[in-house]
């Protein structure tokens, strides 16, 4: 084999390697997006949507402490941001995204409950807050089963002029809706688990 033909073989091999490398790299390119209308407000809505799902996922762990909630919440957020990144929506210009959640335990009328889930998020110097709010308004213990009156709603800083009304289902009791935000629960058990239509779980415990 002459030097010339050997160099030709090397050249062909190099070309094949380059083509293979390019095809492998292109497999990791964003799949779906060609033109995007960039809108930072839409990105806030996008983050809020993720936060709600992450909260729904985290709250189903039946937790009453921030560490466990945070771990589950961030696990979901991490997966979701990876998907967003793959679509190319951020285009590498997102800057810092931060998203955190916490819960507050409330106690009134000898009932312990999750009073608040709070999610805060920021993107490109814009901030947002999403809150799931529960108040125990009254407990009537005179009937056979305790009757608990609660107020429950969601609130978002993206739509500050309105509270977001949700529906609830209950395990361990029966629920009756009084108006948009006020519900009456007849407690058949000491532990009441509530789930709203977005999948967010809250708890009541009669002490």
């Amino acid at each position, binding site marked *: 084999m002459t030097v010339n033909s050997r160099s030709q073989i090397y050249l062909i091999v190099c070309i094949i390697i380059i083509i293979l490398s390019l095809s492998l790299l292109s497999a990791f390119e964003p799949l*779906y997006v060609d033109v995007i209308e960039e809108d930072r407000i839409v990105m806030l809505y996008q983050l809020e949507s993720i936060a709600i799902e992450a909260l729904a996922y985290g709250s189903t762990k039946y937790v009453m402490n921030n560490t466990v909630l945070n771990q589950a919440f961030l696990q979901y957020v991490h997966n979701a941001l990876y998907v967003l990144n793959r679509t190319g929506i951020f285009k590498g210009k997102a800057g810092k995204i931060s998203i955190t959640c916490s819960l507050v335990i409330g106690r009134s009328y000898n009932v312990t409950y999750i009073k608040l889930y709070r999610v805060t998020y920021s993107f490109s110097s814009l901030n947002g807050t999403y809150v799931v709010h529960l108040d125990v308004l009254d407990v009537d213990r005179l009937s056979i089963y305790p009757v608990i009156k609660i107020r429950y709603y969601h609130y978002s800083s993206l739509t500050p002029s309105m509270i977001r009304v949700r529906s609830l289902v209950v395990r361990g009791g029966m629920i009756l809706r009084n108006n948009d935000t006020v519900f009456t629960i007849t407690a058949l058990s000491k532990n009441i688990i509530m789930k709203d239509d977005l999948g967010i779980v809250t708890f009541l415990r009669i002490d």
Partner: protein
Amino acid sequence: MLSIPHDIGIGRILAWLDSAGLLKKLIYSRKYDELNRMLLLLLDKPFSLEIYAINGTLIFQSGSINRPYSHSIVYVITGVNGSFDPRIIVLRV
């Protein structure tokens, strides 16, 4: 009857439908035609709608993607009720 706040333009329509709780409900219950009809009413302009699964599979497509559109909006929903099952929605108007 749906009414969109004035500050929600075409670019924000999917985000607004999501915040109203409609987008996830229609997509995960596979009521794509209903979503299509809703967009038709709200936009009142020709549009194409594509919905993809996370692996890039086209789940739903309506309208012609070959005609020129002035806006392309991409919105991602990651799941419903705490599940992780992302959908990528591409709206061209």
